[in-house]
């Protein structure tokens, strides 16, 4: 019998195993006393570590960082603006392509609200912003677009 490695057990405990891996590991654990013992030790360690909470309410440092960026920004805000501009360009082309596709296939497309939501998600994905945990997926893209517009206006 091939035993489970500690790395496999840690993956399982961390919740990152795929469903097949998880099922196979659980079958093995049910049948193997020594892996079960090791797994229990790791679970105990995991749980004890969970008692260390670090919630520190009320510390929003965004303002401080924006001010610091402004004071240092003289040297290189162009990098950020370029990032935003590239993001805007990619997003705009995807939105345009998707809009054309939407118009062409309107008759058998789902409701406009779902399509619009999808467009927004595609735009966010093109900005690689779809992985943000909170808020709407496209939330930040709106800020990037606004900031880009702002900086463009200032330059003119």
């Amino acid at each position, binding site marked *: 019998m091939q035993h489970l490695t*500690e790395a496999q057990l840690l993956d399982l405990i961390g919740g990152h195993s795929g469903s097949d891996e998880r099922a196979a590991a659980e079958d093995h654990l049910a049948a193997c006393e020594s892996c079960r013992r090791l797994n229990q030790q790791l679970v105990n360690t995991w749980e004890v570590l969970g008692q260390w909470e670090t919630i520190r309410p009320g510390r929003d*440092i965004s303002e401080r960082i924006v001010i610091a960026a402004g004071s240092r920004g003289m040297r290189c805000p162009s990098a950020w603006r370029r990032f935003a501009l590239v993001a805007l360009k990619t997003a705009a082309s995807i939105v345009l392509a998707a809009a054309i596709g939407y118009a062409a296939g309107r008759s058998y497309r789902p409701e406009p609200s779902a399509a619009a939501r999808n467009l927004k998600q595609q735009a966010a994905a093109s900005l690689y912003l779809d992985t943000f945990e909170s808020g709407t997926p496209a939330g930040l893209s709106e800020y990037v677009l*606004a900031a880009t517009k702002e900086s463009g206006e200032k330059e003119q």
Partner: protein
Amino acid sequence: MDALGELVRRHQQNIQALAYRTLGSWDFAEDVAQEVFLRVYHSAGKYQPKAKVSTWLYRIAVNLCLDAMRRSKRAPAALSKDADLPVRSVPDPLEASERVEIIRQAVADLPDRQKTVLNLHRYEGLSHRDIAEVTGWSQPAVESLLVRAYANLRKSLSKLMEES
């Protein structure tokens, strides 16, 4: 600037918590987080669209923390403004329970690389592969570090485990 503020607000909790657990001081964690976001702001052009933004942020934070830990070993006082905060800091009043202090100390006592992967795995919820991406270490190396970190903690936290 609104975009920067929004980026900070969405990720600051995770970045600060990671730096705090690694370095042991909120003041220092805030400094690291500030540096992470300023670097992103100034180096946005270097962003590799293949990576998740959160991975990129963690990566910068991990490198800054590893640098800080290396520096603290050479000159402990250089780590923080307060000179008494580096890796083993004064307990935060919010977390002054004895159990938490034992856990915090056990994590602080881990070698730097073990501590880094442990924090990303246990507290930031990253998979082995994501940790490899964040740290730039191979996945087998990450797994070996994780196994050693948990083995060390199993020993140093055995008393707490018996209690619970």
